């Protein structure tokens, strides 16, 4: 079975082929449509202030979604992503009271990494199911977080706000710049290193990776570690944009991160998923709420609209394929 041959060369370029294979064409297209609709309804998005606040809204979600994507790539799912985010957020905010910024960031990321390694060890080496492990660790991490800090606070400075959520250049929010750095770094790891290909391979068929003489469990553990580092970075970006540490700050990111990964066309059985698609899917879902605000629709409809976007974007390729086959059959 071969892919349908397309006439144009750009369509068959290597990068586009991979986007297609990873299911990312539909979410990328959906984001473009969504963005145009958004700008038509609310042209004010393209002002400096609105761009900045939209970016600050979307970037932590995009980072959480990337973290979720890596776990989904190895065939798991991470229920503890919101809890890890809250913990790093709180640890970072508290450390800012006493420590210089780089050390505080290391503390926040270190706390997240510890959680990731805990999850990864149980999943990869004790072969426990990821959903059970991360559900359990979500409760544990949640309790620890509240033990560390039970109400919003911490010592985040306005200078840090400017460094994470201000503007790099006019019309270029600095948070987008940080997201781009993380995205490119992650792309290098996943697409241009052997370890990254192992992560994709483990999700596709762990037995085959093992039979090829590769360390499948190591790749799984590395995926959990990588994921938690990115999620912690998202927690720090969130702390910067809100200028507080909050023990409940990560809670809402669990379901939205899963939704973004689903919207990105990733396979929940593992092995298939795109970074670009996930970032753009997170941007789409993150902006639905404010779009409805500007369109004058009750914000309770936000979830219904998000759900419809997910279902239609995931469904369109399936419907397209069936009609394509049906048309071909009729023609022949």
């Amino acid at each position: 079975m071969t892919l349908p041959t397309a006439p144009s060369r750009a369509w068959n370029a290597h990068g586009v082929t991979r986007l297609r294979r990873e299911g990312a064409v539909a979410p990328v297209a959906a984001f473009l449509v969504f963005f145009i609709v958004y700008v038509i309804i609310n042209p004010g998005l393209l002002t400096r202030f609105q761009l900045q606040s939209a970016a600050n809204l979307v970037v932590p979600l995009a980072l959480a979604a990337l973290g979720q994507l890596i776990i989904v790539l190895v065939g798991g799912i991470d229920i503890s992503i919101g809890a890890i985010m809250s913990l790093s957020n709180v640890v970072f905010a508290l450390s800012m009271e006493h420590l210089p910024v780089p050390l505080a960031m290391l503390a926040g990321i270190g706390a997240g990494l510890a959680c990731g390694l805990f999850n990864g060890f149980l999943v990869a080496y004790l072969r426990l199911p990821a959903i059970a492990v991360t559900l359990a660790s979500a409760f544990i991490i949640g309790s620890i977080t509240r033990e560390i800090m039970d109400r919003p606070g911490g010592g985040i400075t306005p200078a840090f706000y400017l460094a994470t959520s201000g503007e790099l250049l006019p019309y270029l929010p600095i948070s987008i710049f940080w997201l781009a750095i993380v995205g490119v770094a992650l792309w290098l790891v996943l697409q241009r290193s052997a370890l990254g290909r192992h992560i994709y391979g483990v999700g596709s068929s762990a037995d085959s990776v093992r039979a090829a003489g590769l360390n499948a469990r190591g790749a799984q553990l590395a995926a959990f570690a990588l994921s938690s580092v990115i999620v912690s970075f998202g927690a720090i970006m969130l702390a910067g944009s809100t200028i507080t540490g909050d023990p409940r700050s990560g809670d809402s990111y669990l379901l939205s991160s899963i939704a973004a990964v689903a919207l990105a066309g990733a396979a929940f059985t593992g092995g298939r998923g795109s970074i670009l698609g996930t970032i753009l899917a997170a941007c789409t879902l993150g902006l639905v709420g404010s779009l409805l605000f500007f369109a004058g629709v009750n914000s309770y409809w936000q979830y219904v609209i998000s759900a419809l976007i997910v279902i239609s974007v995931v469904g369109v390729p399936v419907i397209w394929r069936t009609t394509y086959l049906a048309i071909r059959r009729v023609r022949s």
Partner: protein
Amino acid sequence: MTVLTADGVATPVAAPPAPSNALLVVQNLTKHYGPVVAVQDVSFYCLPGEVHALIGENGAGKSTIAKMLAGAVVPTSGSVTAGGIALVSGRIKDARLAGVSCAFQELALVPDWTVAENLALPDGAALRGFSQRKSIHAATALLAGLELDHIDARALVSSLSLADRQFVEIARAITGAPKALILDEASSALGPPGVEWLFRRIRELTALGTSVIYVSHRLSELAVIADRGTVLRDGRVAGEFSRGNWSEDQLISMMAGREASKAFPSSPPLPVSSKPDVLRIENLVAEGLNGISILIKPGEILGVGGLQGHGQRELLRALFGATPASASKWMLGGRPVRRLTPVKAVRLGAGYVPEDRKVEGLALELGVGENLLAPWLKPFQRGGRPRLASEKTWISGVIASLSIRTRGPLENAGALSGGNQQKIVFGRWTDRSRTLILLHDPTRGIDVRAKQELYKAIIELSRQGVGVLWFSTEVEELVNICHRVVVLYEGKIADELEGDRLTAEAVVGAAVGVASPGVSQREIS
């Protein structure tokens, strides 16, 4: 241990010590899984440049030995040395570094990786850069050097045919010039040209001094390629043979531990029946099929030949309604068919034994009994144990008539050996008033005894007046058992063979597209 002497008499001798120049030496290899003995005290050796065959029925321990040699399984006791280095660590990587590589029977390729990634990634460390472009260039050059130009290095492995996947798996094992190469049922999905390709590769390697361990079911291949061999039975060495001093019947009786013959049963005479034709289809069109017309009479065994990927899978799936298809005329069991689905096909009297028993054929976590009953469980009926109890006669009848070796209807289907799993997929259609059975290479990768039992069952179906459409990659089966054979080539019927014209040469010739076009697409009327 016994050794076949020139006149074929088995005489017991002591295990001979391995000569000092042997490349791969296996001594007293033993593997226990709990109380189950998979392999017991197996010793053999392989000289440089030699092809050593390992043969035996399914469950005889061949694959376990191959896995221990490849480092995928840790032996309970015993030793394996390759070029003087001991290999017992149970790590595939160590074995590869010592120069032992293996093409596994259950293909070990990652489906969502491209061919290039599958070829490039197993070598080297995890923490290093990986360039898609370089890997594709390297893989294209590698495939071209191995006469595999038809495989696109950029394609995902999951989009390849089974035969192409096997080619890639073998290519991966060959790269890096191993000192010892283990081929575990490496020819099982390959057609005759593919097997010749494999033999050319083996001869290239042995000319360079590589030892090849050749695990196979196909005895006819051994005569061509094997220099020496070890016969296994129930995890022990049943005997040894070397080139020229064996016959197929001797090996079979050694493998089975009893006198047995490879002889194919002959097809029963076609019953003269007043019943309507089992299947009459004209100009069938579907993805990969290009206007196929077929007529099957009651009790007729129609063979389908041809190389893998020329439309056989699509034909069977279309006839069972598993893939969309249309035809200008389509009668199943005397009734017209429009828009077939598998549910409808079963209702009209069809049965289907799919290609991959583990994925398409069985629910591995369910019991033997429930797997047998699978097509007959309607949504609002009793299920579970009460149902098994009420169907007990039928279930035990099927198990007995096909001699399925199982501990009972409640045993997990996944726990059975390949041959017995295949019998379950087949057995669910027996004694259920079928009119047409579609078989997709049911004897692939199963042992001689199970094959004979399946042949018997197929002939019994034919005697009952059931029509059989049987795709096989083994030409001998088609020639000896089928009444008539159609050979597919590029989605069309290249030739239809019957009577005197039905010979192995004719089937193979039509499969590679050398038959004259005049005989293709004969009118069925």
